[in-house]
Each structure stands twice: as C-alpha cells, then as structure tokens.
C-alpha cells in the first residue's frame, strides 16, 4: 500500500457521490431537528 502524501490528497478530484450527499443532508437535517427539539425541552425544563 503506497504511503500517503499530502500533495495527493487533493490531486485527483473526486465528485460527491449521491450517498455522500445523502449522508451530509440527513446528518444536517437530523441535527437541526434534534437541536430544535432540545431547545424546546430546555425551554420547558430550564436549568436552575
């Protein structure tokens, strides 16, 4: 297995695959929804 070199990290462009787009989209969507839910919970059960 060739040793990685930092120069090769960006040398060949790899387009985003649909599964990567899904991973990014679902993660962000779930994250924002869950955060909103936690903010609501925080509102009704505030820290004292």
């Amino acid at each position, binding site marked *: *297995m060739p040793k990685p070199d930092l120069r090769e990290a*960006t040398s060949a462009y790899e387009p985003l695959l649909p599964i*990567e787009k899904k991973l990014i989209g679902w*993660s*962000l969507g779930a994250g924002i929804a869950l*955060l909103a839910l936690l903010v609501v919970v925080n509102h009704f059960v505030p820290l*004292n």
Partner: protein
Amino acid sequence: MSEAILPLRTAAPPRFSEDLVAVGLGLVVFLLALGSLAGADALGWLVTTSVWTAPSTALAPVSKAYASLGGAGSLLATYLVLTGVLSAAAYLLGDDVKRFAAAFTAVFVIAYASWFVGSWAYLAAVTPADQAKFGVSWSLKLTNEGGYIVALLAGLVIANAFPAFAERLRSAVRPELYIKIAIVILGAFIAVTMASKLTLASSLMLRGLAAIVEAYLIYWPIVYLIARKGFGFSREWAAPLASGVSICGVAAAIATGGAIRARPQVPILVSSLVVVFAVIEVLILPFIAQTFMSHEPLVAAAWMGLAVKTDGAALAAGGITQSLIQAKAAAEGIAYQPGWMLTVTATVKVFIDVFIGVWAFILAYIWTNHINPRAGAEKAKLGEIWERFPKFILGFVATFLITLALALGTTVGSSGQLTAAIGEANVLRVIFFVLTFFSIGVMSNFRQLWQEGFGKLAAVYLVSLFGFVVWVGFVISWLFFAGVKPPLVS
C-alpha cells in the same frame, strides 16, 4: 477518545490497551482515596503546591498526617511512586521500561517545575486581599492553575527550539494516557461536586445530548462538505479531517480512518494538525472567555467542551477558564463553588466521546457498502461499536456512580469525609493534568505546518474551526446555559 493515539515506537506489542491501563490506574487511585474512609490515609503523602513568594514554603504533603515528610520529601515520594507505577504501565503498553523511566523523570521534573512556577504569587494571586497577604503589588491573576499554561509553554519551547531533546522525551510524552487516568479520577470529583446540587447536575446531563447532536450531526457534515467541495480533498482525507475538527480530535480522526479503511498514515497526519490547533485554542479561548463571558461561567465552560478538540486540550481549557473566571469573579466579590465549570466541560466532552463508536460504525457501513464496496472485502460489523468505544469512559462512569452513591446514601457523604478523601485523589488528577499539558506542548511541532501540502489541510481546519465551530459552539452553549450560574460558596 478511543485507543492509543499517535504512534510510539514500542519495544514490544502492547499487553493491554491504553484505555484499560488508564482505567486500572485510575481505579487504583480511587480505591486508595476511599481507603481513608476506613482510616487508611494512603494518599496523604502526595505533594501539593500553594501560592508562594518564598519557594521554601510552597510545597507540602496533602495530609497533615504526613507533615513529617516536609515539602521536599512529599515531592520525592510523589515522583518515585509515579515513576514506579507509570513504568509498570509502560511495560503493559509494550514500551521499554528503562527508556520510559528516564524520559518520565525529565517530563515530571519540567512539568512539576512549571506548576511550581505557576503558583508564584506574581502569577497566581487573585484578589487584592491575596496580593496584600503575599506582599505583592501586582499579579497576573492566573490563580495557581496558571501553572498549566506554564507547562504548556515549556513543552512548546522544547518541541520547537530543542527538537532533539523532545525526541528523547518521546516515550514519556503520553498525553492520552495521562488525561484518561485523570478523567477516571475526575469522575469521583464531579460526583462529589454534583451531589450537593443534584437537580442542577441532572439538568447538565440533559444538555450533554445537545453536544452529541452538535458535534456529529452539525459540525461533521459541514466540515466534510467544506473539505470535499471547497478544497477538493479526497474522501480518504476528508472523513478523518471532518472527524478531527468536529468530534474529539485525535481519537476521532483515527477511529474514522479505521472505519473507512484509510491508510494508517492519513489520520495520523490529520492528528498532528489537530494537536497543533488544539494548543492554539487552549492559549486563546480561555482568555476570550474570561474577557467576554465572565458573567456566564457555564456558557464559557460548555463552549470549551464544544470548541476545543482533543479531550486533554478541552479539559485543560475548561480548567484554565474556570480559574480565570473564578479569579475575575473573586475580584468582584463573587465566590463560585470550585469544580462546576470543569464539570460542565467534562460532561460535554464525555458525552461527545461516548458516541464515537456508533459514528465510526455508521461511516464504516456507508464506506464498505456504498463508497468502496469490494468483492471479498471485510464489511462493517456491529462489534466495531464496542471495539471503538472509548473504554476509559467506563472507569469514569464507575468512579462517578460509586462516589455519588456514597455521597447520597451514606453518612460519610454528609460528614465531609468523602469530600476530603476524593480531594486527595484530586491532587493526583491535577498532576496528571499538568503532565498532559506539558506533553501536548512537546508534541506540538509548529514546523509541521510548513510541510508541503500541509497548508491546504490547515486551511480547512482554520476555516472550519474559526469560521463556524467556535461560533456555533458559542451559540449553542448560550442557548442551553445562559443565565445559569455555578452555586456560590456558602
């Protein structure tokens, strides 16, 4: 965090993982501390350092029962016992014991000397009353925990000005081992702190969930997208980099590298960048927090847990932030109970750590089934969740639960005996923190940033970290912790 991080040249294959060794040592310290509940003061000989103007008055054993040892005797005893115990740990980790003991001697001497210097009244005295007591007309007001910064700076000087010496120290420069032992001990300290305010404590736990969501589901996809689309990184580099910036730095980068079957050197190169940036954060963010958030201590503490990468650096930043904000508050006549800010930082960080195994499994599943499906190649298995679970957290949970049960369910909890016993263990926790700070400094060779190609990697990190990780972390900390103050000293 999961298993051992930056590779060391070991003499033999490790007999146990770093996590298990850390749990073992942390539990031994914890049990020895509990021994004092039965009348056996097994840790009272440990050295502590008070704020000083005359060096000869600074050191003393933590327990009066060992007063006859004197400061120098307790320092020597602490050094000898730590060298012996950690050399045994080095043996279990497959390291050369003689080489470790020699290197650890230098590490301990420099790290503890830094702690000692940090307790000098001109650096540490906080209130005008303190300054008058020590007869100093000015002070940097860093509290004696400013010694952490001195240790970090000492490590940085060695790494960047004396690289050959840094290399000789290498086998004892193990920040991950030291911080894991400290975190196991910290579990007991946090339990003692929380037992006094159980409602607040349980509410803090709920807020830990927000940290998981933020790190894995907000930070990770954005950093991955920036690395892939904005800077054109390949998947093999972008995924460990996203984990390094988003989750808990070094360990997350390595767990992700393993999950996506990246070449081992990829996450290691990413990790070296994580350490360098974590040091920069530790040196900057606590002072920003003190300047702008001294009236929102828990926001500042949560911010450290969310913004500073690697467990050691995050807890270090939490500790410094706690000292700086307590110092500023004390100057205004407000005395917060110690420990609460560090508790918030640790809670946030531990919650984030717990999820690493699950996230690594999700990535492994996607990579092996959709991105790099190879005939005959090993697929992701559910067992990877356990394999990558940071086991030292089990030690943290154990000391936390046992101490909480003792604090709430027995008379030793209410009598103050338990607090005193855990206080002795906490002295060792502080020493392990100092060793961690110094080690992080020694590992931070800034010349790496000039390596060809490193600039682009650093640019992703810089854009992500200071472009949104720090700010989103601040906003979320504010949403969940604004207006809540640590309990005051009664």
